[in-house]
């Protein structure tokens, strides 16, 4: 039997067609690269240096108030603060109208805040984990509590931001009412975690001494090297299939912009994060200290919802699921989606289901 169901002429025709479609795709990408990012109006409510705290959906609340339909204070939902990772920009949570977790959460009637870490520069070289977790996060939470007249808020930590949120909740438990973690690494030494395997061999002190802040491009190169054939080759060959669909091209370009829009990492925080989590697996070893305070997951008593992707290659499910049984929460629940790390933010199914499941989970407690 023939291995190919095509002959030489058909193969050549396919090549010509491919080149033509790629030509069209490239021309149209010029327009697509101008595609707007961010779908939901937001308001800056607190700023400290490069760190900004945004509140979403304020204009809708004001419209309701103008129409005399404002919710009484008692019926207002408790604030939900999204703590995103340092390694990418948080606009992934609100990429576009039909790909916006934030929009979905607002539709659930939630009051959504988000911390934008900004782009660290040389002046942030000595900003460490304590500054991020016990400094910026704590002061953002304090601001929200004061502004909303509440003692504690709900926290949704995403990826590395989820690890931060676990630490914060363990250290400042009275400030967090309920905790949600999404694609969050907890056990950094599971056998399927390639990134962690590599990170364990890294001389993190030498990196920070040499670079100061760690360039975003360096991290990007490491992420791409996890699946080089798919991420550096096949993804761009597949672009030909999008040539006739301007909307799909815009989506592609938004994703490209996000993937390569990688802030530099503050040197001290990078050193501490890689050392404590990737190399010493300190959450699992129960040896983590931040600014001299012990972080013990078993002190967590809050209800916890742990969301992860079954095909996540950056944070394998095993790394996230390790949280089960480590906390002192009597109300721990997991929610798995059959998707990858990025799919968790943008796939159709998560867009449809995740905000509703989060809303349902919060309303049930």
């Amino acid at each position, binding site marked *: *039997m*023939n*291995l*190919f*169901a*095509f*002959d*030489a*002429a*058909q*193969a*050549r025709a*396919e*090549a010509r067609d*491919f*080149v033509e479609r*790629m030509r069209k*795709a*490239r021309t149209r*990408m010029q327009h697509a*690269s101008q595609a707007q990012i961010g779908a939901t109006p937001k308001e800056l409510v607190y700023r400290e*240096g490069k760190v900004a705290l945004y509140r979403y959906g304020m204009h809708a609340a004001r419209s309701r108030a103008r129409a005399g339909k404002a919710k009484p204070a008692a019926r207002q939902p408790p604030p939900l603060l999204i703590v995103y990772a340092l390694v990418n920009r948080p606009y992934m949570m609100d990429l576009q109208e039909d790909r916006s977790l934030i929009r979905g959460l607002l539709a659930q009637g939630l009051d959504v805040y988000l911390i934008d870490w900004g782009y660290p520069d*040389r*002046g942030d*070289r*000595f*900003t460490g984990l304590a*500054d991020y977790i016990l*400094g910026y996060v704590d*002061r953002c939470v304090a601001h929200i509590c004061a502004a909303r007249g509440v003692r504690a808020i709900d926290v949704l930590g995403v990826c590395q931001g989820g690890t931060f949120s676990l630490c914060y909740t363990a250290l400042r438990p009275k400030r967090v009412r309920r905790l949600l973690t999404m694609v969050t690494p907890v056990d950094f030494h599971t056998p399927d975690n*390639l990134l962690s*395997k*590599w990170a*364990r*061999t*890294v*001389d993190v002190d*030498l*990196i920070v001494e*040499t*670079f*100061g802040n760690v360039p975003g491009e360096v991290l990007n190169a490491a992420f791409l*090297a*996890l*699946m*080089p*054939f*798919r991420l*550096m*080759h*096949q*993804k*761009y*060959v597949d*672009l*030909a299939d999008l040539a006739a669909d301007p909307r799909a091209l815009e989506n592609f*370009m938004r994703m*490209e*912009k996000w993937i*390569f829009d990688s802030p530099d990492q503050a040197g001290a925080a990078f050193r501490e994060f890689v050392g404590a989590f990737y190399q010493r697996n300190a959450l699992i070893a129960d040896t983590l200290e931040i600014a001299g305070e012990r972080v013990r997951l078993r002190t967590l008593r809050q209800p916890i919802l742990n969301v992860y992707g079954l095909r996540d290659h950056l944070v394998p499910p095993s790394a996230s699921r390790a949280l089960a049984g480590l906390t002192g929460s009597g109300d721990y629940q997991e929610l798995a989606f059959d998707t990858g790390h990025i799919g968790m933010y943008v796939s159709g199914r998560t867009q449809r289901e995740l905000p509703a499941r989060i809303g349902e989970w919060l309303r049930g407690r």
Partner: protein
Amino acid sequence: MKQTEAATDLADEAFAAFAETLSQLARDVPGADFEAQLAQLRRILVEGAQLREQAFAGLIGAWRELADLGTSFAAPIAAFHAGDAEGARELEKQATELRHACDALGALLAPLPAEAFAAFATTARARIAERRPFESVKAVYDAWIESSEAAYSRLAHSEAFASAQSRLNQASLRLRAAQLALIEGGARQLGLPTRADVDELHRQIHELRNEIVTLRGKPASARKRVPRRRR
């Protein structure tokens, strides 16, 4: 968006070349001899190592350029800071180590196309057994990518790979450190602020910033009173 443009150019050329290769194959080895087709394909994909070149040659090449740049960098710096012969020797030593580290990683990656092809052949034989020949060049390409990724993943998870990659990283960092040391030495001689000086200032600013935040967080009564100056 430069990365995207460069990547699409590469994808365009590579896929067209891949299709051309398959069109020759379909012409030269027509008919029912599937094993002959596979053997031919092996010769093209593995010995030609087209995708290996595209996926890794650029990467290894970039590291090599860094090593070469490190050495060429040495001459003007050494001239600028003539007293530091030891620093210049260290730079040369690290550049050489970087080249060796590139070779070591390159040697580890060399069998990858053959291993990828073994996985591809298994897929191809399974398709023949199921009477599902490849319907298009794209289908062959996708299967080749999947096989390459599987072979790479096995290698990337190995201790040998982690060790070779670590050596390469260390070498490039030490080369950079040697460059910085030379520049710092030269700057000090000329009385210019060095990177270390700037870092120290940033460290002090960071500490002061934290002290201000702490003071702001305390009630006014707890703040240390600063006596007012009399006019």
